């Protein structure tokens, strides 16, 4: 049990994607113009990650080594199609905003990375814990980045005004340069925190 908990919690801080494992940057940068979009993208990715980890860990002894990557991609792509159709049916406005980045979940390196590095070598329960932890870590990171960009670029968070009256929003934060610079600064802050932890 303790091992399962450890697999879950490592995704939340020690190996949190995309800040520690610099993978899955495209959705991270593209959809985080608002905190709400970050949560939507994060949860969709979490669903695919948990389900594909589950199926791959069940099938891990049945999949031949040589074609494993192709097999993983088929499993992941099937769940992405499910998410795509569900979002189209029930969350249409969010589906419109996330747009091309929903089909692109299939090439999110985090998912294939976890399938290859973890689910294909471990049993079902730890694999689910790993997928859930990594997925929630990813959701948290996207929400944080989305909130920062939304506050600076629009003066709101989750659509609620929080900045003072005369605050002039920096429109650039909602555009590509804002995304890159924000992520770069967050990564350097993470480096700073971990080097402080190490020196203590």
């Amino acid at each position: 049990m303790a091992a399962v908990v450890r697999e879950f919690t490592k995704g939340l801080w020690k190996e949190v994607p995309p800040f520690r494992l610099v993978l899955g940057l495209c959705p991270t940068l593209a959809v985080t113009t608002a905190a709400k979009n970050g949560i939507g993208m994060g949860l969709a990715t979490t669903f695919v990650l948990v389900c594909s980890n589950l199926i791959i860990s069940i099938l891990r002894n049945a999949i031949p080594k040589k074609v494993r990557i192709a097999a993983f991609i088929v499993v992941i792509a099937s769940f992405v199609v499910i998410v795509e159709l569900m979002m189209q049916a029930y969350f249409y406005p969010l589906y419109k905003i996330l747009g091309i980045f929903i089909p692109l979940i299939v090439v999110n390196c985090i998912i294939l990375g976890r399938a290859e590095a973890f689910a294909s070598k471990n049993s079902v329960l730890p694999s689910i814990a790993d997928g859930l932890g990594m997925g929630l870590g990813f959701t948290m990171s996207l929400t944080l980045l989305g909130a920062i960009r939304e506050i600076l670029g629009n003066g709101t968070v989750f659509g609620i005004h929080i900045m003072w009256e005369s605050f002039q929003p920096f429109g650039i934060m909602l555009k590509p340069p804002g995304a890159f610079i924000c992520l770069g600064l967050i990564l350097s802050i993470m480096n700073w925190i971990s080097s402080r932890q190490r020196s203590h």
Partner: protein
Amino acid sequence: MSEYLLLIVSAIFVNNIILARYLGNCPFLGTSNRMDTAIGMAMAVVFVITLSSATTWIVQEYILKPFDLEYLQTIAFILVIASLVQLVEMFLQKSIPGLYRALGIFLPLITTNCAVLGVAVLSVESHMSFIKTLVFAFASSVGYGMALVILTGIRERSATSPIPVHLRGTPLGLITVALLALAFLGFAGMVK
């Protein structure tokens, strides 16, 4: 003619695939430390994106559409791309070993480069004709290669400069991309 010219300018500069559309970031940061790797990657990207967009266009028009299977687009495209990359790799290894040695290690990496699937989906979504798809895919990937080579040039220079410890590597890479994207923002609105 001017229609194609606008399409090319738009795909390379105005809607640059990485600096304006955020596609293909991971290999962009991963291979931009040395100029020879960057050029190899850029060439492999141009080759694969053009070829795979043409193939996925044919799959979309002649297989998915006639059989009403458009909801399987994602899964069909990624399978086509993955097998295409594998085929290209085997073909190059057998018949053009020189090019294979130059592109070799980058080809498998390209399957999970979201720019490849991204360009395929973008061109299908905007209902382009076959020739337009080819031009769009080629111009987009040239834009990607150009951005990659520019970024590598900057990063190679900054590697020898005194940089604060916590900013070294990826963080500074991202901030450099931000400045590059800021420069490219100057093209915004020139062409739709």
